[in-house]
């Protein structure tokens, strides 16, 4: 992927001009957001200024939250990676669809409660909430570390997303990545969470236009959806007659969907989007409205099948979507679509950097709390880390690390989510579960050669299941076991859960 050479003709300068126009417009709008909101600059060590930079002052209403969470949950990497997986595996790649559906009943039940706790206690991160609940600094650090390590490769993947489209435009070498980085840095530094929040709508409208055009135009070329599915099937492994999945794929499909859904809103970036909402009802309303993005995701996933039907052939699956757009759209519209993907990377990457900065200034080095200047520097540092990850390691490393990141973030589920139930577990039980789950999952994942599923042998039956889910079960089992065997102090009374 780093040395990908576009297999289709490089688009003309027309595409480049349209791309630059839209990309630059978004960055300028986002960076100057505090200026045209008429707020001027918040004082560097002002507590309100810090909450404003890191959580948008907890004032985002239904629509802004919808665009913001939609913008940072359905990322540019999604637009590149989901069709790439569908291109490579066919129907199996669609597990992103059930994943992004069942996540909403979960969001509806859990997130308003977490929002309330965070709002009442002025918490900015998951680790804040856990510290207040369990009164344990060690557990707080564990949760913060999981979040930080999990979000870093995610930012790297957004930079890779931007690089993929800029490379497809014909700009070689490391220039695209540097451009991507500088734009992202300026954008986050100046605008804080307001920058992605108020430009997310541009990103979404652009992505909607690009994808709707693609899913209308391409099947017309190919003779309708029925013909499209039939042609694509000829290029993919053939499932047993009448089935969509290959034998043995059902359980991986379901367990990957479930583990992804449980992990999705534990990430610093998604949780930041949720905590920045104005009220608990804002979140409930969004649990009803956000599935609209899932329809879009389903259509985006179809692009992987359409690429087969349109005869796009490449070994670099992450270039599927750019190649497909170049193959079917006029140059100027290709430029527009590429800008949509690049802007689509900018919005989540900014929220991720801010979420990570919140973790560092609130939990890892609490002395920096309410210091907006420190937050800016930390966000910059996090992005530099992500850049280094892409430049000096390689894209595949970022992808592997993101897989592990999903596994690690899932291990914060018991402390954060079981923590809000009436069940009372000690901090010690939670910490032991976190350690055992994280170590076990990491070991299994490495042992399997960094694959997302693990082959279990139960009573002579072999069945692959999501490694993250397996580690979570081990984690919860440990929590219960330690909780029963070692009666620790009951929870701190600092919160009303």
């Amino acid at each position, binding site marked *: 992927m780093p040395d990908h050479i576009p297999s289709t003709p490089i688009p003309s300068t027309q595409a480049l001009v349209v791309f630059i126009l839209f990309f630059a417009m978004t960055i300028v709008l986002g960076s100057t957001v505090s200026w045209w909101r008429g707020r001027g600059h918040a004082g560097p060590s002002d507590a309100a200024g810090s909450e404003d930079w890191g959580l948008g002052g907890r004032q985002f209403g239904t629509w802004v939250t919808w665009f913001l969470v939609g913008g940072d949950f359905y990322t540019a990497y999604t637009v590149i990676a989901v069709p790439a997986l569908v291109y490579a595996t066919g*129907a199996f790649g*669609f597990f992103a*669809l*059930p994943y992004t*559906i*069942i996540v*909403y*009943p979960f969001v*509806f*039940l859990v997130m308003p409660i977490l929002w309330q706790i965070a709002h009442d206690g002025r918490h900015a991160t998951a680790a804040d909430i856990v510290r207040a609940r369990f009164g344990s600094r060690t557990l707080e650090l564990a949760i913060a570390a999981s979040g930080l390590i999990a979000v870093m490769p995610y930012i790297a993947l957004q930079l890779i997303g931007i690089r993929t489209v800029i490379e497809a435009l014909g700009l070689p070498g490391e220039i695209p990545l540097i451009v991507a980085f500088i734009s992202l840095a300026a954008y986050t530094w100046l605008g804080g969470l307001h920058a992605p929040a108020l430009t997310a709508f541009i990103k979404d409208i652009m992505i909607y236009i690009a994808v709707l055009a693609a899913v209308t135009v391409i*099947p017309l070329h190919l003779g*309708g*959806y*029925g*013909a*499209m*599915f039939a042609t694509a099937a000829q290029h993919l492994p053939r499932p047993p007659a*009448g*089935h*969509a*999945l290959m034998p043995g794929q*059902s*359980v991986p*499909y*379901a367990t990957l*969907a*479930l583990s992804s859904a449980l992990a999705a809103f534990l990430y610093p970036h998604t949780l930041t989007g949720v905590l920045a909402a104005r009220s608990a009802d804002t979140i*409930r309303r969004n*649990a*009803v*409205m956000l*599935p*609209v993005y*899932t*329809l879009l995701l*389903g259509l985006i996933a179809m692009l992987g099948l359409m690429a087969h039907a349109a005869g796009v052939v490449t070994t670099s699956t992450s270039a599927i979507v750019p190649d497909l757009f170049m193959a079917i759209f006029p140059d100027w519209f290709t430029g527009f679509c590429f800008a949509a993907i690049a802007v689509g990377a900018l919005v989540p990457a900014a929220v991720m950097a801010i979420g990570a900065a919140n973790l560092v200034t609130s939990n890892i080095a609490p002395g920096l709390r309410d210091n907006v200047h420190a937050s800016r520097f930390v966000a910059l540092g996090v992005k530099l880390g992500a850049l280094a990850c892409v430049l000096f390691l390689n894209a595949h490393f970022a992808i592997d690390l993101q897989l592990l990141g999903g596994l690690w973030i899932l291990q914060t589920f018991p402390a954060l989510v079981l923590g809000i139930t009436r069940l009372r577990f000690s901090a010690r039980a939670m910490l032991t579960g976190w350690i055992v789950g994280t170590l076990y999952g990491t070991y299994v994942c490495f042992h399997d050669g960094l694959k997302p599923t693990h082959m279990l042998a139960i009573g002579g039956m072999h069945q692959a299941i999501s490694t993250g889910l397996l580690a979570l079960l081990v984690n919860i089992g440990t929590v219960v076991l330690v909780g029963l065997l070692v009666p620790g102090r009951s929870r701190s009374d600092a919160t009303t859960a």
Partner: protein
Amino acid sequence: MKKLYLALLLPFVGLLWLPLYDRTEPALLGFPFFYWYQLAWVPLTSLLVWVVWKRAAR
């Protein structure tokens, strides 16, 4: 715990039990069953969450 909250389990059952929809027929508008069935759960889940929110929460 109001009983209506149990309705939120339906998407989990409907989407995580693959024997329900790992099939290609009947197709709809050219979409094999596998695809349109999952897409149909999107508005359905929205509706379920909305109904639970409006009915059970008060």
